[in-house]
C-alpha cells in the first residue's frame, strides 16, 4: 500500500518517506544481525536458533507489559542482563560441547535448539498472536514531509546505540581485542595464553543479549508468537551474508540494503512480494559473492 494513502491529506514526500523507513527498519535489522554475525565471526557457528531468542525477547516484553504494566523500554534494561545469562547458560549446556565439532554437528545442534525453543513457547503460551500497544506505538512524528512512529524511532536509536557500543567494545577494549584475536586464529590465540572457552562463552552471551534486546525493542511493532523469530532471522541471514559473515560494519551496511530492498519492493510491487526480493538478493549474493560485499573472496570455501 502506498504509505501516503493511509495518512490522508498530510503532505508526504515519497522519496524522503521511503528513505526514513529504510533507515528505521535497517537499524532494527542491524541489531538482530549483529549478534548473529558476532557469533559466526568468532565461534564459526551459524546460530540457527538466533530467531528463537528474538521471539523470547518479544514474549518477555509482552508478559512484562500485560501482567505488570511495565513499558517495553524499561524491560530493555533488565532484558539485556537476563539474555546475557540465558546466553551463558545455553553456551555451557549446549554449545560448548560442539564448538570443535564438524559443521553438520553444529548446524543440527542449533536447529535442534530452535525446534525445542519454538515448541516450548508453543506449549507454554499457545500459538496465539500476542500484541501489545504501549503509548509509544500510537504516537506519530512528522518532519520534513515524512511521518513515522515513535516506537520505530526509539527502536532505531537504541539499536544503533547498542550496535555502535558493541563495535567500540570490540575495537578498543582488551577483551574486544582478545575476541578478535580468537576469531583470526583460534590456535595462535590459545598459544598466546588466551582462554578461548571464556571468549566463546562471552561471545555467545553478548550475541544473545543483543538479539534479546532486539526482541524487546520490536515488541510494540510486531506480534509475538512461537515462530515470530523465523521471519526476522531469515532476514538476518541475508543481512549477515551480504555484509560478510563476522563483519559488524558489513552487517550495518547489509541491514540498510535489505531494508531498502524491502521498503522499495513493497512500495513498487506491493507488500505481498517483498520477501521474494531479498531472498533473490540473498541467493544472488551467495552465488556470486558468498564472502559478502565487503568480505574477502573465497572465505566460504575455506570452510571458515
Amino acid at each position: 500500500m502506498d504509505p501516503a494513502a493511509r495518512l490522508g491529506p498530510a503532505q508526504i514526500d515519497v522519496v524522503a518517506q521511503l528513505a526514513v523507513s529504510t533507515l528505521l527498519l535497517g537499524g532494527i535489522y542491524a541489531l538482530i544481525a549483529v549478534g548473529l554475525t558476532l557469533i559466526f565471526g568468532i565461534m564459526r557457528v551459524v546460530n540457527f536458533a538466533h530467531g528463537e531468542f528474538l521471539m523470547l525477547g518479544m514474549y518477555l516484553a509482552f508478559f512484562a507489559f500485560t501482567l505488570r504494566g511495565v513499558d517495553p523500554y524499561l524491560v530493555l534494561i533488565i532484558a539485556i542482563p537476563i539474555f546475557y545469562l540465558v546466553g551463558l547458560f545455553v553456551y555451557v549446556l549446549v554449545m560448548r560441547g560442539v564448538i570443535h565439532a564438524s559443521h553438520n554437528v553444529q548446524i543440527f545442534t542449533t536447529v535442534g535448539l530452535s525446534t525445542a525453543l519454538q515448541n516450548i513457547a508453543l506449549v507454554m503460551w499457545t500459538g496465539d498472536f500476542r500484541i501489545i500497544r504501549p503509548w509509544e506505538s500510537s504516537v506519530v512524528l512528522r518532519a520534513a514531509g515524512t511521518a513515522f512512529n515513535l516506537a520505530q524511532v526509539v527502536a532505531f536509536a537504541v539499536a544503533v546505540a547498542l550496535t555502535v557500543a558493541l563495535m567500540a567494545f570490540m575495537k578498543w577494549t582488551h577483551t574486544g581485542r582478545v575476541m578478535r584475536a580468537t576469531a583470526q586464529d583460534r590456535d595462535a590465540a590459545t598459544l598466546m595464553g588466551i582462554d578461548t572457552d571464556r571468549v566463546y562463552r562471552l561471545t555467545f552471551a553478548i550475541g544473545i543479549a543483543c538479539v534479546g534486546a532486539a526482541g524487546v525493542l520490536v515488541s510494540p511493532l510486531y506480534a509475538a508468537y512461537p515462530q515470530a523469530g523465523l521471519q526476522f532471522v531469515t532476514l538476518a541471514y541475508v543481512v549477515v551474508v551480504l555484509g560478510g559473515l563476522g563483519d559488524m560494519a558489513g552487517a550495518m551496511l547489509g541491514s540498510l540494503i535489505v531494508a531498502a530492498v524491502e521498503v522499495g519492493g513493497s512500495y513498487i510491487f506491493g507488500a505481498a512480494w517483498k520477501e521474494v526480493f531479498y531472498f533473490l538478493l540473498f541467493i544472488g549474493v551467495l552465488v556470486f559473492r558468498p564472502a559478502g560485499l565487503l568480505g574477502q573472496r573465497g572465505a566460504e570455501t575455506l570452510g571458515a
Partner: protein
Amino acid sequence: MSRLAPDRWAAVAMFAVAALTPLVVRDAFLLDSVILILLWGALSAAWNVAGGYAGQVSLGHAAFFGIGAYAAALMSARYAQSPWLGLAVGVALSVVAGALIGYLSNRLKGPYFALSTIAFAEVLKIVASRWRGFTSGSEGVPVPYRPGFWTLGLGHVAWLYLILVVAVGCYALQVYLERSRVGYQLAGVREDEDAAEALGIATRRRKVQAIVLSAAMTSACGSLWAQYVGFVDPSHVFSIDLSVRFALNSIIGGIGTALGPFLGSLLITSLETYLRATFSGVEASFTGIYLIIYGVVLILIVRFAPDGLTGIAGRFWAWRARAHA
C-alpha cells in the same frame, strides 16, 4: 559391514512386518501409522542421498517436496488429470530445480550451503502463497477424491502396499549407491573434496547428480503424500520444519546408511503418532511436546552419537563379538 550385515536383515524384517500388517489388522489408525512411517522413511532416504552419502547437507528439501505436492494436487484439482501425471511433472520440475540449486550452490560449504537451500525453499513458499490465480495462495489446494489407482483414490491397504514399494525402492537405491562406483566417489567427495578431485573424480558433477537424484525422489514422495493426505498448503509443504524432519530422521537413525532414515522414521513417526493420539483431546498446543522431544533428541544425538542408532548398534555388535571371542 561384512556379508552378515545385520542392518540389511533389520531392513528386510522391517519391510516384511509392514507387508504383513494388513493381513493381521484392519485398523485404519494402525495402517495409517505404518504408511506414514514408510513414507517419512522414504523421504528421509531421499534426503540421505544428498545429505548423507554426498555430504550436501540441505535444509531446503521441502522445496522439492512442495513442488511434487503442488504438481500432483494441481494436476488433479485444477486440470482433472491423473495425479501420476502430476507426479511426473513434479519430478521433472524438481530435477530442473535440483540441478539449478546444485549448480548455483556448488562452491558453498557447510552453513553456507544450508543457508542457500533454506533461501530456495523460502522463495518457493512465498511464490506458492502469493500466486493466488494458480496455486490458490495460502488457502491451499484440497485434492479431490476419485476412487481408482489411476486417480490415486485408494483404500488404506492399497496405499500401504504402494508406499511400501516406494520405500523399498528408496532403500534399494541407497544400497546400490553404497556399492556402486558413483557411491564410492560420493563418499570421497564427502570426506575430502580436494583429495577426491585430485584423484580425478568430477566432484562438482557428482554433487549436482546426488542433489538431482535426491530432489526427484523427494518430489515423487511429495506427490504421493499430497494424494494420501488430500490437502496441500504452502506454509506446511515448503516449511523449514519439514526439511529439518527429513534430516532429523536420517541423523537419528544413522546418516549415510541405508537403514538409518527408516529406523529414524520408525522412532520419530511412532512417537509423534502416539503423542498426537494421547494429547489431541487435551489441548491442541500440547502436540508441540513431541517437537520439543525432537529438538532435544537431535541435540543429544549429534553430540553424543553422531553416527545415530545404526552406529550405536554397530558398536554394540562389535563389542559383543569381542566379548564372545
